[in-house]
């Protein structure tokens, strides 16, 4: 809170709302705030759509079909509604949105601290500080690649990469690759490396198996039609589990009806259990592979049975069933990395948000942001774009609109409640409060 020792920082402005992050989430709420005439600024550490632009691999495409790619006030207008957008096209889509909506974006403006002052928030950046009534954290759920602790035990001669460093197979030195993780990222990258002729071992923990298309339609059509994607966060049984669910084994491609461990195995991958340890250069895998595959198969069956109810009612083609995941009689438990020629480990073990700059006590003991459907546990602070934030679809591009509308509404009511009779929304005098020094 008040800290009389802090260095004077140049005041960039006093404003109602600071939105942090100019990706699809930040730009969407900016559009809605703009429509409502709320004075705000969008601070962006790099360029618009920065993570997509600088921190993802070359071949990445959206998992959602083009018809579903939409933001408040903007729909996909191309001629391939059933295709999957390559990242370069998505960046153009978001760039166009920023330009078309006239979003007040300050690029190259990295937030270094957000703190609560007496009645406001102070947002420090490398380009001066802002004082505001409300803050929207729209920095996304995938800022930092999560790497398990076992990475520290990997011998130094083996290269280690995360999906944030990986661009294409050419970048990886010849030799085998151990892909750790069997969610969307892990399987997509394993697939790409296999096609490039690499020896690939996949370490698979718990995962979500899902076909690309089912009964003649894309799976996302069914997740929409059944209402699954619209389920609210306060209706799901175990919200914590729901929010930590790994991304489904999907790729933005119609190459295969399903991308799973079975077809990567056919393509030559060796499938092992979850990577549990590395000792003296020997990777140790869990003996639970059969069960994690059984769990994934059972859960997929339940999902498809649920879809069947809707599909039957809509007269869709007959139900399909997918072969259970095949597991070797004795899956690998250890691999001597050097002897097996493994030269690279690719950690496809998920992402986490980075709130290291957030100096407001809103984290739980596990480091997760505490929020109720995006309303953060500090008055006037909001978040957008986290998994199952308000709905199952929250983390998808198309899922942002409903969430952003809800949050914008709450935020505007909050502004009204705190700034009665003050048309400017903020007392500029406050910036001179003791303990809140923002000397020019």
């Amino acid at each position, binding site marked *: 809170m008040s800290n009389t020792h802090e260095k004077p920082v140049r005041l960039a402005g006093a404003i109602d709302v600071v939105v942090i992050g100019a990706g699809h989430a930040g730009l969407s709420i900016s559009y809605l705030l703009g429509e409502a005439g709320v004075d705000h600024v969008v601070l962006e550490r790099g360029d618009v759509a920065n993570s997509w632009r600088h921190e993802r691999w070359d071949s990445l495409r959206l998992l959602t079909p083009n018809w579903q790619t939409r933001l408040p006030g903007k729909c996909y207008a191309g001629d391939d509604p059933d295709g999957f957008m390559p990242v370069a096209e998505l960046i153009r889509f978001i760039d166009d949105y920023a330009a078309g909506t006239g979003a007040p974006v300050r690029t190259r403006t990295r937030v270094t601290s957000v703190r609560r002052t007496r009645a406001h928030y102070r947002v420090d950046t490398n380009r001066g500080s802002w004082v505001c009534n409300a803050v929207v954290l729209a920095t996304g759920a995938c800022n930092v690649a999560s790497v398990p602790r076992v990475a520290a035990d990997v011998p130094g001669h083996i290269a280690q990469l995360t999906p944030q460093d990986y661009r294409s197979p050419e970048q990886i030195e010849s030799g085998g690759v151990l892909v750790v993780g069997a969610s969307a990222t892990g399987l997509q990258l394993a697939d790409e490396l296999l096609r490039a002729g690499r020896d690939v071992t996949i370490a698979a923990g718990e995962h979500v198996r899902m076909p690309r298309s089912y009964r003649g339609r894309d799976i996302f059509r069914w997740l929409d039609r059944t209402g699954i994607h619209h389920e609210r966060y306060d209706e799901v049984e175990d919200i914590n589990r729901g929010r930590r669910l790994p991304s489904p084994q999907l790729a933005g491609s119609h190459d295969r009806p399903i991308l799973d461990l079975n077809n990567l195995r056919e393509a030559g991958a060796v499938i092992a259990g979850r990577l549990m340890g590395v000792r003296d250069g020997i990777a140790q895998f869990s003996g639970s592979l059969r069960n994690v595959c059984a*769990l994934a198969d059972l859960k997929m069956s339940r999902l498809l049975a649920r879809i069947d109810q809707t599909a039957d009612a809509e007269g869709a083609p007959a139900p399909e069933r997918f072969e259970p995941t095949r597991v070797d009689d004795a899956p690998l438990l250890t691999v001597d990395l050097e002897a097996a020629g493994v030269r690279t480990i690719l950690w496809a073990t998920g992402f986490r948000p980075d709130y290291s700059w957030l100096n407001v006590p809103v984290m739980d003991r596990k480091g997760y942001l505490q929020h109720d459907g995006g309303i953060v546990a500090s008055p006037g602070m909001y978040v957008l774009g986290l998994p199952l934030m308000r709905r199952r679809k929250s983390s998808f591009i198309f899922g942002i609109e409903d969430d952003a509308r809800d949050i914008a509404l709450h935020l505007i009511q909050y502004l009204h409640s705190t700034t009665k009779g003050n048309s400017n929304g903020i007392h500029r005098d406050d910036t001179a409060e003791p303990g809140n020094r923002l000397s020019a």
Partner: protein
Amino acid sequence: MNEAQTAVNNGINIEALLGAREALTAAPEAAKFVWRAASEWKSGTHTESRVDGFFGLGEEQKHVREFRYDSDHPEIFASEDNGPTPVEFVLVGLAGCLTAGIAAVAQNRGIQLHSVLASIEADMDIQGILGIDADVRNGFNGITVNYRIDADASEEDIAALVAQSQKRSAVFDIITNPTNVHVNVNK
């Protein structure tokens, strides 16, 4: 809790389990348990082990009484067979853990169990423990558990019970994943 769940009785107090889960979420320190056993060599390969107290919920706890177990080796190993072999205790632990999990998950999912039978087999090549072949491991080459379950549920729901039980089983985890073991002497 819905009606189906309250009507089902697998001898599991699910309210207490769910209550504990909630309480320990709020007070994670109390979730830190220490399990103990003590053993004493009798003669030959015969050892007697005792299980009595453990630590949990922030304090020392006691079983309702002390339990004693003899472990030994069979006569074909030139032993007296005063009890199961230690590796058989591992199978007993796995069976007990998975089956308890099945009952708890079934109760939570409102599934009435009628019988849950398991047979467990573990393959071992004793060339490992006898030091005949260094390429053969001491422990099991693999474990197979076969369940026969009669319950008021579909085949798929029963399979899901068994899968969920493995997912949450301590002994399954202990067996399938590496654990650091520290053995001290006269310390």
